[in-house]
């Protein structure tokens, strides 16, 4: 391992992209993720790769589609309104079964919203957004170190399953500076891509990449194959972290920036005799329903803390399945809840539950 260095989250995403062997990036500027472009605009051409500023987010995701179709590791990054625009492309990438990596440094919405941190893209990144029955793998780091590791990993996952892998990092993840330790050698898996449309060469037959099939039997077969792949991802790739969940009075479910605050709330709560647990999904899709459900008989309540009006709480409720009460606390607009603010909320909930 190399020495620890102090770096900004967005710069680390860009560095991780290069370290993962991705030499092609297409994007459109949007705050708060633009530093990714600045870094790659300088580095990728030096490495013989492509940095291209597209005319729109729509064009950028379709450039990604083209680069992936010919077998390249490729990435784009954006923030909430830009991700909305890319959704059409996500659906086509899913339909054509192309590997690609998309980074979403989430800000606030709806509409143009604001440039401060948010987690209000949870619905649009985990539940589709584009048309059709498809899924994207979504990873949610909560430190700059994890931003690095999960961004590298996202390329392996995308290639392994031939699907889109997203890293959902809220604005503070992208903008914060933190120590990061890069590996001397990355764990990169190289996958054969016999399906790539990179010119027939001596293959002996032509390849084509498509998401369309007007034959109902064949289209249904394609959909069934996609669904089988998604079930496999659910079986293999669920990741989460649990802190102090055994013997907890209440489990806070939180990811990204807000989950960091909970770690300190746990310590504060202990001092006043309250046992708070943190359940942190690292994969937002596939969601760790079963792991979360295991706690339903042991705690008084669950509290979902998000930088949104309550989006992930729907998955918390699905996991808990009515067996415990689920509460929500969120901020929208760019404010991040303070430790005391969350502790007060926990105390209020436990008082209510104890009645």
């Amino acid at each position: 391992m190399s020495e620890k260095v102090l770096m900004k989250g967005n710069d680390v995403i860009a560095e991780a992209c290069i370290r993962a062997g991705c030499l092609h990036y297409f994007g459109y500027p949007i705050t708060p993720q633009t530093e990714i472009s600045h870094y790659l605009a300088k580095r990728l051409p030096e490495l013989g790769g492509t940095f291209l500023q597209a005319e729109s987010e729509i064009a950028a995701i379709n450039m990604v589609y083209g680069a992936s179709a010919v077998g390249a590791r490729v990435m784009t990054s954006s923030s909430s309104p830009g991700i909305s625009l890319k959704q059409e492309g996500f659906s086509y990438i899913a339909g054509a079964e192309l590997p690609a990596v998309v980074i979403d440094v989430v800000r606030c919405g709806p509409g143009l919203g604001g440039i401060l941190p948010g987690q209000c893209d949870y619905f649009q990144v985990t539940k589709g957004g584009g048309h059709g029955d498809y899924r994207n793998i979504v990873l949610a780091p909560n430190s700059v170190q994890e931003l690095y590791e999960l961004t590298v990993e996202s390329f392996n996952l995308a290639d392994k399953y031939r699907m889109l892998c997203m890293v959902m990092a809220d604005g503070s993840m992208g903008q914060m500076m933190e120590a990061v330790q890069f590996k001397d050698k990355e764990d990169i898996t190289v996958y054969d891509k016999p399906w790539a449309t990179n010119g027939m060469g001596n293959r002996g037959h032509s390849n084509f990449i498509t998401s369309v099939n007007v034959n109902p039997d064949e289209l249904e077969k394609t959909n069934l194959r996609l669904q089988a792949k998604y079930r496999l991802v659910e079986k293999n790739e669920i990741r989460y972290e649990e802190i102090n969940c055994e013997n907890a009075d209440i489990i806070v479910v939180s990811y990204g920036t807000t989950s960091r605050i909970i770690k300190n709330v746990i310590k504060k709560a202990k001092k006043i005799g309250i046992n708070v647990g943190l359940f942190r999904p690292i994969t937002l899709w596939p969601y760790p329903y079963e792991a979360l459900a295991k706690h339903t008989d042991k705690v008084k309540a669950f509290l979902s803390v998000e930088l949104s009006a309550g989006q992930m709480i729907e998955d918390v409720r699905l996991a808990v399945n009515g067996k415990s009460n689920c509460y929500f606390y969120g901020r929208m607009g760019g404010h991040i809840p303070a430790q005391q603010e969350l502790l007060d909320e926990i105390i209020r909930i436990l008082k209510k539950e104890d009645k």
Partner: protein
Amino acid sequence: MAKERLHPKSIQDKVWHYCPGCSHGIVHRIIGEVIDELNIQKSVIGIASVGCSYNNYEYFNFDVIQAAHGRAPAVATGVKRVLPNNVVFTYQGDGDLAAIGTAEIIHVAARGERLTTIFINNAIYGMTSGQMAPTTLPEQITKTTPVGRNTDYHGFPIRISEMLALQEGTAFVERVSTHDVKHIIKAKKAIKKAFMVQQAGLGFSLVEVLSTCPTNWGLTPLESQEWIKDHMIPYYGIGNLKGKDIKV
């Protein structure tokens, strides 16, 4: 002496799904012949779009990527930037290129992407059964202009090839027609030159092909060819718009 009917290697031996009298078959055949003549079957990559030719990979015998509506130029950009030595072309209709995909086509031209676009202009939306296209002529009747395109209300046809020719990154633009053999031969020359301009790395190249849509025009195949001659050519004009003097 009986002449052998030569079938291009770059075209699969299948029956088209296109309607009788439609120009797609002619243009596909031209592309196949040009790819054979340039000996690029093993390296060429085509981008199909959305419209009646959405599945032209069923007919072309080389690698093809199907793109979202209007986005073929962006997809082609991604391909070409990764594989700069492969010949890459998009095959797009008038709705795809001149309505929903206007931004993408203008920007590949402005960037001077080494790409070729074959632009099928039949003045109507074929696949969705005959609505107004951005290239529908004034007074032309379509399903969404049932009493004819009224320029006061629906606006004017877009001469997008002229717009694209203005971009500094564009090296070659020509508008051709498929209404008779003489013009089909000219169309083939233009398409071959467009590919060669790309191979020479000179910039973006585009050939607009004035094409028939007998089914949605409500005309016979023969009447459709006359309609190109009598209505489309007088409005749009045919000939070179940029790069006439390029020697490749």
